[in-house]
């Protein structure tokens, strides 16, 4: 078998071709994935038309499908999760990148965050169902609203815990990139730490922070299992913060195996297509911003 690996240009040619075709293959794979989703979504687009995005009811019985309830559900949970998580991730980033950079305690916090990032989403979902839901239920009873426990609020809180590591890791890195002399100059003028953060670090890392937030948003957008287990599985546009709802990812998880008609299945696939497009856009923008930051910085 070693024959073709012998010192001959033949071996090199084979190897190089292998490399090349692998790369082409990956490219084709990604293109194929996108095209498959598009083709399979066409029946749905033909059948539902604009109602798909602008209607208000998801009804498999009368075959009238609007994804709007899920778009809204996804948007609300993702944005809310972001809002809740940002104070935490920014604090942790500052803690790790600036305040106690390099110290022992920093390593422990970093370790904690890395572990949180590695927990599978199904376990978050299960934990959320067993622990978070009763807590929210108690809160709802206290507030005098129907104590469902599950719903948008619970899903958002759960999501926020899950996305903290993403923003943190990116922002922490860009904070470390702030030139030391800029900071020293500020300190020598008598600035407090807070002022250095506010006037030097934050403006300098602004685009990095935005990129980190975008990436977290993209993650929250596509999260499936954890959300499915605590969001309440209601296919309507949610009327309140504590209402049950569904996200685009969770409706696919719930209904894919039982989509009895071709249009139903095609519509679910078109939900997947929209998820794909949105996550591609968000990720592209995020990486573009980071790329520019590193080039400039």
């Amino acid at each position: 078998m070693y024959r073709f690996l012998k010192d001959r240009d033949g071996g090199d040619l084979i190897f190089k071709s292998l490399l090349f075709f692998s790369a082409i293959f990956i490219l084709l794979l990604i293109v194929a994935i996108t095209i498959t989703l598009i083709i399979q979504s066409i029946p749905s687009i033909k059948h539902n038309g604009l109602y798909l995005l602008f209607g208000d009811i998801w009804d498999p019985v009368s075959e009238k499908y609007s994804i709007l309830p899920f778009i809204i559900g996804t948007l609300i949970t993702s944005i809310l999760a972001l809002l809740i998580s940002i104070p935490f991730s920014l604090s942790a980033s500052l803690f790790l990148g600036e305040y106690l950079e390099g110290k022992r305690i920093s390593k422990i916090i970093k370790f904690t965050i890395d572990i949180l990032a590695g927990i599978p989403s199904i376990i978050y979902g299960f934990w959320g169902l067993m622990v978070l839901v009763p807590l929210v239920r108690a809160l709802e009873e206290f507030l005098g609203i129907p104590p469902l426990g599950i719903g948008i609020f619970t899903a958002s809180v759960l999501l926020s815990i899950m996305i903290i590591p993403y923003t943190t890791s990116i922002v922490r890195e860009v904070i470390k990139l702030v030139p030391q002399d800029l900071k020293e100059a500020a300190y020598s003028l008598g600035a407090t730490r807070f002022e250095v953060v506010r006037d030097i670090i934050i403006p300098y890392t602004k685009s990095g922070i935005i990129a980190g937030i975008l990436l977290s948003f993209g993650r929250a957008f596509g999260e499936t299992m954890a959300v499915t287990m605590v969001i309440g599985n209601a296919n309507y546009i949610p009327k309140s913060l504590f209402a049950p709802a569904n996200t685009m990812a969770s409706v696919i998880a719930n209904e894919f195996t039982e989509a009895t008609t071709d249009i139903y299945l095609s519509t679910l696939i078109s939900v997947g297509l929209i998820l794909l497009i949105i996550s591609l856009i968000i990720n592209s923008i995020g990486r573009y911003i980071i790329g520019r930051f590193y080039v400039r910085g």
Partner: protein
Amino acid sequence: MKFGLIGLLTAFIMLAFSMGINAEDLIGAGATFPYPLYSKMFSEYQKTNKINVNYQSIGSGGGIKQLLEKTVDFGGSDAIMTDEQLSKAPKILHIPTCLGAVVVTYNLPIKSELKLTPEIISDIFLGKITKWNDPMIVEINKGIALPDKDITVVHRSDGSGTTAIFTDYLSKVSEGWKNKVGKGTSVNWPVGLGGKGNEGVAGLVKQVPNSIGYVELIYAIQNKMSYATIKNRAGNFVKPSLESTSKAAETELPDDMRISLTDTDAANGYPISGFTYILVYQEQNYDNRPIGKAKSLVNLLKWMATDGQKFTTPLHYAPLSESAKNKALKLIKSMTYDGKSIE
């Protein structure tokens, strides 16, 4: 070393392909309604007949769909397939396996049992009755302290035969329901939370105070949940049980067993009862199915209709009546392979 590794991997792949190839193992999916019964039945069947049956409880909608896609050997469904669905595929048989009751379960801090009428149930699920101490409910439940709280409605989020039976009942007893919502495995619920599977609904009702939902009897019993006594067509308040379920089936049964038992006219029959079915293709030679698999399926079905029936009552499912059993066996007998009977 590299080739050693490749060799090992190849061996592993070959192993993974070959091991456990028992051509006669069966895959089914569908209704959550009979899942506790099926999981017991298949576990026992494995002990005596050494055939593994993998059943995933994904809801009747899923059972129908996967059978239509031919990714499973049989589908489980409490919903009767519509003529439209049947017209899309080669002939599919509905083989009944047992009877079950869809009970209206609730989570209330009361000791005695709740009585409900068809009108009340439809109005609750339509969102017209929103509080537990609504006059209509109080009137027939004199002596029970119903709380002045909102009713949280729980329904199925997935395609469900249990839903099909329940909404079939509601469509029969409420003109308003029939026009506004209709019946089916998935409907556009006016109000409420969705739970996945019977398990999901039971879980939600169990945990959310002042909630109401519909589940198969065994789920309420296993979870020690309360369920309502319901007024049937004859005017009697009937408690769901094995007996009242069986009574609901005491009627003329059609040969293809596609019959709805809801709103039964049997005097002491429970009004929200139904058969649960195993759906199979009558002609088993499709997609290069080996005859061994077809035989295996037929044997399983025959066992479920006969010896397997002894597992029904301990789990609070009603066994098939004599006439239902005979119809089932007849349907099984009509299964063919290449046109020839499999028996």
